[in-house]
Each structure stands twice: as C-alpha cells, then as structure tokens.
C-alpha cells in the first residue's frame, strides 16, 4: 500500500459503471428472467372519466397462452390504495387510488384489467378480447374551471376538485414583511400569469418489474429510483410483511423523478405473483409509459412583483394552481410546496406570500420531475425580473445584481426562513458574461434591430439557486412529509484489504460507483480500484432513502464519509493495541497508522487481516473492520449559477435557434468534474426542452395526443446546441465535503434563460410573454400580435386565473 499523493476527489476519473454499459452486459429489469416466468399486460382505459358498467374477460381467459385475467374487482381487497406520503395540510382531500380501477376510471390510461400469460406477446394479444363498457362522466381538464363554483367533479365523493390549499406568508411566519403592504406601496407592479406546461419525464428505459414469490422472501426487481421506499410502501399497501420482501433496483435507465414512485403496476405485479405463486414480469411499452407513468410540472402561476422605480424589488405574491391529475401519487402534493421556498431565489426582497391550491383533473397524476417545484419557481421569478428590467429600461443582469444577496452577506436568511450558507453570485455572473461576450452580443442585437433584420437576436439570463440535498428530516417533518431525509451507508474493509461500500442512495446513471470510490479511496488511503460500491438492493443495502432531489452526494456520500470515520476510529484502536502505543500517538494518513515522530507504522490492510485472524484484539473489540452510519443534514445546500442564452428568432417563421449557451455553475466542491459536467449537460437538455419543445397535450375528451415519441418531442442531437460550461467553486458549509449537488441545476436554470432570450428577441414587436414551449407557431403568433398562448394548448390554453390579464401590465 502506498500513499496516494494526488487526491482522488477532484480528479476526472472515468466511470467504473461504463464497463458493463458500453459492452451491453447490463441488468435492466427487462433483461432478467427466472424459471417459470409469466408475463403481464395491462388493459388501459381509453376514456378519461367514466363509470365501468361491465368488464367481460371470459374470452380473454381462453386465448392461447393465457393463465389468468384479473379485474380491479378481482383484486380489490389485496391491492390496497396507492400511497401518498405527503399530506401537506391536515384537511388534504385524497381519493382512494386503486392500482386497477374498480368501478370508475379517472384518467385515460388508467389500468382496468391485467392479463397473465406465458409470453409477453400472448398477454398483449389477449387484451383485445376483453370487453369493457364505460358510461361517460363529464371530463374535467382545465384547472381554473375545475376550481370554479359548480364545476364537474373528478371524484364526486370528495365534493370538490380542490385537494388542499397551502399558504406561506412571510409576515405571518415572522420571516419578512407584509406583501399586501408592499404591493400597496409599490411604485411599479409587474403582474403576470405564467403556465408551466405539463411535461413527461420520459426516462429512456421503460418501466419494468419482475416479482418472484417462490423463495422465502418475495423478490421484486424494478426499474425504480427508490428501492427502499418501495419496499416499505409495497408492504404497507398490500399487507405483505416487510421482512418478506426484498426489492432490487438493478441497472436503471434514467429516472428524472419519473421513477420516484410506487406504481400501480408494481402493486399489481406483487399481488398477482403472490396469488398465483408464480413469478411475473411486466415491461411497459413507450406509449403506456407516456400515458401512465406520472407527468410533471403543470401549474398556473399568478404573480405580482412589487418594486420601486430605482429597481429595488420590495415583494412578491404568488398564487398557484397545481394540477395533481386524477390521484395523489407518492409526493404529488409536495411538489409545489418545495417550490414555495424558491420563488425568492437569490434575491433579498423583504415581503413574500405564496398560496397554492392543488387541483384534481381527469389526467395522468403528476409528481416529481427533475427539479420538482424549483424549476417552476425559478422560471417565474426570472421571467418577472426580466419584465421589471424591461419596464424600467434597465439591463436585466444589472437589475438582478442590485437585488441579489451579495457575497459578503452570507450566511443569509431569506424571506422564506431558509439559511443560505454560501454563495458568490457576482463571481459566477462575471465569468459567464465574459465567456458569453455579453457586450458584443448586445451590440449585435441593437444593430439587427436597427436594420430590421428578419432574424432577430435575443439574449436571456437566468441567475438561480436551488435547495439541494433533500433534506433535513426535521424540515421535512415541519412540512408534514411522511419520511425523513437522512441517508445510510456502511463500509466493510475485507480481510484482503479490499473495501465494500454500501450506500442507501440508489443510482440510475449518476455515477455513484465512481464518485463514492473516489471519496473512500482518499479517506481510507486505498486504491480507487479496490473499492466496490453496492447499492440498489434492500438485502445488501438494508437501509436508505434512495435518490432524488440532488441528495446523493450531499446526504448519501456524507453518510459514507461518516461510516469511514468510524472504521478509522476502530482501526486506530486495534493498531494502537498491536503497536503497543496510545491511540493518540497514531497518525492516520495514506492508509497507514504511523507512530508520531517515528518510522513505525502499520497499514489499514494489515489491521484488516489482523481483525480477521482475531488472534490478538483489544478487550471488547469485535473481530470486524466495518461500520455503518447515517447522515441527516442540518440544512439544505444551495448550488447557484448564472446561465446566458442567445437565440436567433426568424421573425417570418417564428423558428428559434439557440446561437450560444453559456453557464457557470457553482456546485461547491467537485468530486468528479466529468460527472458534474455531464449532469449539467443533461439538465440543460431537459430545461431547454421545456422552453422550446416538450408539452403533454390532451384533447377536449382528455385523450393524450402526445402519446408516442413521434408526438412528444424529446429533443435529439440536432435540436440541442453546444453548451459552454464552467464553474466557480464556493464550498458549502452545511456538509464536511463542501458539496452542494448538481443533478437539477441545469434544468432549473435553463428554461427561464431560453424563454427570456426568446421574448427579448421580439420585445420590440410589443411582445412581453410567450407560452412554453416556444414553438414556431406561438412565437410567430406573438410577433404578429396574436394571443401568446396559441399553438396547440387546446381548450386549456394559457390557463389564466380568471380576472388576470395575461398580457401583463404595469401599474
């Protein structure tokens, strides 16, 4: 064992994970099989809202290869109600959510029956033989209409389409002033209504689950982000004893929040496998995925920003409608609540009020999607800051600078009561401006305007922060979330000196195996290659809260570090015993314990072997060199950054082309720069897609018209630009590693940067808003003086909150 001179943390280590992924030796759930496996296929409702008057499965039962067919009624007792872990208010209304609909369907795509067959194709074939009669009910699609008096109801038994109303008021909370007063005193008011269109996470690996009930424990393999939470929730939902369940998330092909779920199909697979005593597998088609895996975003944001003529922002009032879809899934109600704490972003205005009404509609349930709540909030404030700048004739970056928290003002307690630990918005912005060539592009923009160029240039900025590292358990408790936010890890130093790291954080593309190895290699002084990271199996990794909310590094890796500290402590005791010195006399570095001021030393590897042999251990020391730990952060971490986007808008066609995209992110200490950069790129792609391409559209009957990848426009390589990325590094002080989290940053920051740029390009035509995604049709219509919400939103276009004029306006 030699001491590694160069630390692993910070090194651009190529990923360990790649070896299997680039050669096709992968364990996607759909690649797995067990003896006697049967296949499931689900029949889904073609209508959005209806009573089921009859289901006839007789013919399907006799189709070739079919073993059984079950309806919701057949499974009614065993399937339970799908869990929602986040009652945001005590009086939150929540409908029963059966995995297979029993007498009523509430969204198109809801499963009504399941076929079990010997082969997958046979199972799908038999679906055609099932006869279902539906009696249509009125379809509720528009959130605004859904909360109006006398609206048709999604769930008649609830008596309302409002699930909950949640308010944060800085005056009431004692964290700031009274927003109504700020509005009354304002010299300038910017009032807008923005719509966060419905998006689809669209992970590339379709969901898949395999349940094998034939062992002592029932094993569930699932393409999930949350094996630990899933195990508990499956136990609670179906009554299967928790200790009789083992959940494995093998290789998982992306999640983005879309696999942060207890799905109806997982529950049904478990129930059916248990009933038949046979292993079953279900893998969704892409169309099923787009239709029935949860959707994201979908909010109407009514906003009032109060300011003084000198540009100082004095308050923000937010009224949200958030579409829950037809049911509350795992964290559905909490998504807008996470956003509540981010509308103030990096700014220090003194008064804030946020009110949110969660609304049921006859659509696919919504839930977490990359950033969950924070992109929606960041979009709103960053659009408003641009509108204020335009109203005051100010440079948008300079206006932001006037209002943001200065570097020397950290730690800073925001109007929401969050304490931001560190940040340096000046540094990131200066670097971004420089890389972008801001002044030159502004000059070109002026020149093009003056000459009336057909192609206009727009420049958009977005300065952002987010709360990462979900989360301090006590904060989640104060928000009524049903679980904590700690993470668990274990480290085992094996007799040969190799190290096993067990983490409760379950990866699906984030590179945990590599990053955790780097951290442990430094800490224990062992080679990177000698560390193996185990995750995603409740048997090898019995405790954990899994992966979402950019919490893996800030919480998960911190637990690893804590476990490592305990291992070193124990090893030190043993080393002191064998070297016959006091523990305090030993220094640990580069994998070796050295007696201070001498050459005498022993390696961690020697200690591991000595522990295994157990010939001579100190009294009371158990023969193992392993340890486990949990970490619960005291605070969130707050990555930040500045993103700049230049777009060219063809004013004759409305086509938007991204000319340049620059971002400088500050994610604190970087463990692996290539992983960080990759995460930023992927995040940007998803944020840009919201700005320009993606939208889940329903027709007036509630059918999803973007139900295939031909209609739902996930961008390809041609649709996205080259990104110029860089970093500043302001270590977080809320964790020992100084890390902040990166997974969601690109998504949160980029959407407003792009839309700000598009609006900026055509503002001189009188445009001050364009509904997302900024399709050529919408942009063209805006330039030509039409309503900004044109272009395919159908009946729910713009989704204004009643009396508010979406054309904006200044008091």
């Amino acid at each position, binding site marked *: 064992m030699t001491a590694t001179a160069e630390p692993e943390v910070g090194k651009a280590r190529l990923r360990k994970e790649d070896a299997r992924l680039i050669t096709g*030796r*992968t364990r996607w759930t759909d*690649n797995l099989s067990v003896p006697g496996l049967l296949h499931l296929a689900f029949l889904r409702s073609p209508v959005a809202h209806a009573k089921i008057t009859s289901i006839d499965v007789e013919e399907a039962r006799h189709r070739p290869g079919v073993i059984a067919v079950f309806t919701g009624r057949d499974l009614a007792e065993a399937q339970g109600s799908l869990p929602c872990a986040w009652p945001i208010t005590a009086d939150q209304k929540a409908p029963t959510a059966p995995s297979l609909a029993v007498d009523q369907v509430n969204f198109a795509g809801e499963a009504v029956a399941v076929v079990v067959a010997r082969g997958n194709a046979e199972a799908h074939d038999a679906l055609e033989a099932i006869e279902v009669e539906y009696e249509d009910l009125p379809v509720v699609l528009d959130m605004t209409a859904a909360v109006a008096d006398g609206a048709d109801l999604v769930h008649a038994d609830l008596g309302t389409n409002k699930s909950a109303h949640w308010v944060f008021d800085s005056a009431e909370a004692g964290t700031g002033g009274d927003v109504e007063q700020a509005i009354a005193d304002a010299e300038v008011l910017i009032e807008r209504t923005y719509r966060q269109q419905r998006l689809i996470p669209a992970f590339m690996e379709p969901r898949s689950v395999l349940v094998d009930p034939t062992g002592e424990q029932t094993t569930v393999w699932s393409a999930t982000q949350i094996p630990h939470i899933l195990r508990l929730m499956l136990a609670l939902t179906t009554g299967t004893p928790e200790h009789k369940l083992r959940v494995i998330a093998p290789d998982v092909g992306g999640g983005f929040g879309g696999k942060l779920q207890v799905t109806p199909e997982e529950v049904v697979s478990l129930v059916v496998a248990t009933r038949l005593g046979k292993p079953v597998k279900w893998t969704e088609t*892409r169309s099923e995925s787009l239709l029935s895996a949860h959707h994201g975003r979908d909010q109407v944001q009514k906003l009032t920003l109060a300011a003084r003529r000198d540009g100082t922002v004095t308050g923000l009032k937010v009224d949200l409608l958030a579409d829950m879809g037809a049911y509350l899934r795992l964290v559905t109600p909490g998504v807008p609540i996470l956003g509540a704490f981010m509308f103030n972003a990096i700014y220090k205005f003194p008064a804030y009020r946020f009110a949110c009404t969660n609304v049921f509609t006859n659509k696919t349930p919504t839930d977490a999607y990359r950033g969950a709540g924070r992109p929606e909030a960041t979009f709103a404030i960053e659009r408003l800051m641009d509108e204020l700048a335009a109203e005051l004739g100010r440079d948008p970056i300079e206006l932001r600078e006037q209002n943001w928290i200065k570097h020397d003002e950290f730690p800073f307690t925001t109007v929401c009561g969050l304490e931001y630990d560190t940040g340096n918005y000046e540094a990131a912005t200066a670097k971004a401006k420089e890389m972008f060539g801001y002044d030159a592009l502004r000059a070109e923009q002026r020149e093009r305007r003056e000459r009336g160029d057909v192609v206009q240039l727009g420049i958009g900025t977005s300065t952002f922060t987010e709360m990462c590292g979900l989360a301090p358990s006590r904060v989640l408790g104060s928000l009524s979330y049903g679980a904590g936010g700690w993470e668990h890890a274990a480290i085992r130093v094996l007799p040969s000196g190799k190290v096993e790291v067990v983490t409760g954080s379950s990866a699906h593309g984030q590179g945990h195996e590599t990053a955790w190895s780097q951290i442990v290699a430094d800490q224990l002084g062992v080679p990177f290659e000698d560390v193996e990271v185990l995750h995603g199996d409740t048997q090898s990794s019995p405790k954990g809260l899994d992966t979402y909310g950019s919490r893996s590094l800030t919480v998960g890796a911190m637990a690893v570090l804590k476990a490592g500290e305990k291992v070193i402590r124990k090893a030190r005791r043993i080393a002191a015993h064998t070297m016959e010195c006091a523990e305090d006399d030993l220094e640990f570095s580069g994998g070796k314990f050295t007696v201070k001021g001498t050459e005498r030393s022993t390696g961690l590897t020697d200690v591991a072997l000595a522990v295994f042999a157990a010939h001579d251990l100190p009294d009371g020391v158990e023969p193992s060199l392993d340890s486990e730990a949990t970490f619960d952060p005291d605070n969130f971490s707050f990555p930040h950054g500045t993103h700049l986007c230049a777009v060219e808008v063809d004013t004759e066609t409305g086509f938007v082309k991204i000319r340049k995209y620059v971002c400088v992110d500050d994610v604190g200490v970087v463990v692996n720069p290539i992983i960080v950069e990759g995460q930023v790129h992927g995040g940007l792609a998803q944020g840009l897609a919201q700005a320009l391409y993606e939208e889940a559209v329903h027709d007036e009957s509630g059918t999803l018209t973007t139900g295939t990848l031909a209609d739902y426009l996930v961008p390809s390589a041609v649709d996205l630009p080259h990104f110029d990325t860089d970093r500043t590094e302001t270590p977080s002080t809320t964790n020992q590693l100084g890390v902040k989290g990166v997974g969601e940053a690109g998504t949160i920051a980029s959407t407003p940067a792009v839309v700000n740029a598009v609006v900026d390009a055509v503002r001189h035509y009188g445009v001050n808003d364009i509904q997302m995604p900024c399709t050529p049709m919408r942009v063209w219509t805006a330039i030509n003086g039409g309503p900004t919400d044109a272009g395919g939103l159908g009946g729910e276009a713009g989704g204004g909150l009643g009396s508010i004029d979406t054309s904006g306006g200044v008091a």
Partner: protein
Amino acid sequence: MRITVTVDGTTYTDEVEPRKLLVHHLRETIGKTGTVVGCDTSNCGSCTVHLNGQSVKSCSVLAVQADGAEVTTIEGLARDGVLHPVQQAFHDNHALQCGFCTPGMIMQSIDLLADDPDPDEDTVRHGLEGNLCRCTGYQNIVRAVQDAAQKLKPGSHQPVGGQ
C-alpha cells in the same frame, strides 16, 4: 418459420413466428442483453444493430427478414477483450450516464463514421438524429464520435482500444 442468422459471429437457427421483430429475436431467443427496446414507434434508436454491416433499428425489421444475414450487436464489438475505438471513445468522453441509449448510439456512430470518417459537429448531430438520449444532452456523445474519428484515422498514432 425457420431462420438462420449469424449474430456476433455465432450462427443460430431457430423457429420464429413471422411477426416477430428482430429485436425480440435477439433478446428473447438468442439471449442478447445489450440491444434494448425504448419505444414502439421506431423513434428512439435504442435497438440499433448492424445488419450486414448497415445500422438498422432492429424494432423495425422482422426476424425473418434477417434470415441468412450477419448481425452485429453491441456485444460483438469488442475483440479479445479490447474495446472497439467507438466504445472506448464513449468511455473516455463520458458519453453515457444511465447507459440505456448507449448500445444504439455506439452502433449508429460506427455506421456514421463508416460514411464520413471525419465528420464535423453538425454531421455527427444529424447522423444521430434518430437516437434519443435523455441523460447526456448529447454534447459528450458528439465529442466521443469525433474523438473516435481521430483515433480511427489511418496512420493515426493514437492508440485505439484497450483499457
């Protein structure tokens, strides 16, 4: 129907239903795990393989159409444990995250480099238009393909393959 297909150098003769897609034949009958299904509309490219040296989306080819053909999947690229230069370039350039799109991306990239051994960024982007990736934002994929192009150049002194 009885078909004979040579996949990654091994010849397989099997009875297949006429409607069976090549991707399902590869996965279910032959036992390949690298070629995956990401959609049902031939939009995602996850299932891309080489059929007689040309890249195809194996979800849009019937197994019977491959009778007598030579198929290469991601699993047949590495030789004697040495990665294909494109595989190596994907690794070197962090061109994958979850890795689900990766086999299809690599197979498509090899085909596009066969057509144009020195593509510019735009050419690569267009060449990969039919392959969706949700994780990487494509930038590192484009970089990997261009990197592989350099390494594949005749007379290039860059080492190719090997870990």
